[in-house]
């Protein structure tokens, strides 16, 4: 059976990086996309799309409804893996995925050339696998296999 993955990111750079990584994977998997803006659905037309609740540090209370909505979607979809390039809404989604024992993957944004993002450092505590896009930031635990350029 074809494996199913959920790919989630916030609108902007995170989303564009995610698309560059996940679109070529559509050949092998059923991909469900999630982003924080309804307009992003048209970018991935033909694919299943969920709107993710957006929040940042200034309205962090929204983390709670966001978390429950993610939990519900993951429970319903039962994806084999969840991939995110960030930011906070992606972190919540991989956390919900971890609770439901899904495979979770964090890919830190290429913008973080000096150290992993704060969200990335939190994700590192529980995700199944974490990637940096910078060879000098790779460690035993933090993988490097290339970046979003080709």
């Amino acid at each position: 059976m074809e494996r199913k993955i959920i790919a989630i990111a916030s609108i902007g750079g995170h989303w564009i990086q995610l698309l560059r990584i996940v679109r070529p994977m559509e050949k092998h998997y059923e991909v469900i996309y999630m982003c924080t803006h309804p307009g992003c659905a048209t970018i991935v037309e033909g694919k299943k799309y969920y709107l993710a609740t957006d929040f940042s540090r200034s309205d962090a209370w929204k983390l709670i409804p966001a978390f429950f909505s993610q939990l519900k979607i993951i429970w319903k979809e039962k994806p084999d893996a969840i991939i995110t390039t960030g930011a906070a809404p992606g972190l919540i989604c991989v956390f919900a995925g971890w609770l439901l024992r899904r495979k979770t993957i964090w890919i830190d944004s290429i913008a973080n050339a000096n150290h992993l993002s704060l969200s990335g450092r939190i994700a590192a505590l529980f995700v199944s696998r974490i990637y940096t896009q910078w060879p000098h930031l790779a460690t035993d635990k933090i993988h490097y296999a290339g970046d979003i350029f080709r």
Partner: protein
Amino acid sequence: MIFVTIGTQIPFDRLIEILDRIAPELDEEIYAQVLRGKYKPKHIKTLDFIEPDEFEKVFLQARLVVAHAGMGTILSSMRKAKPLIIFPRIASLGEHRNEHQSATAQMIKEKNYAYVATNEEELRELLHKNLHPLKNIGEFASENLVKSLEDFIDLNV
């Protein structure tokens, strides 16, 4: 047309003000996505937040792109072969939460992927030049990264 984009989250009035001062010296229209900035420019046309598909249309029409150091714009410019000038936000001026845009701009400059300006004079000088795109990229991320992810997803644990 010169398209100016500052992302989707917070205003970037310092850049808009500088561009508004430079605009009368250029005989080309400037369109700027300004979000909810306080500064009201006189010499450039402004757009509020635009939908992703509409953004794509304006972006394609542009001859040159001027942007904050957001990866979204940087990747789109490389993909569509648009000359790009990056003007990074400075967190200590309240323009962002942390200084990652300066790091991005530094990386872009080192790799010669785009033009970088950090003040009004540098930006003015670049806008008076006839710039060409510095870097072209394909549609997807590196094959190696995609392969590594797929191997990990296919792994039975």
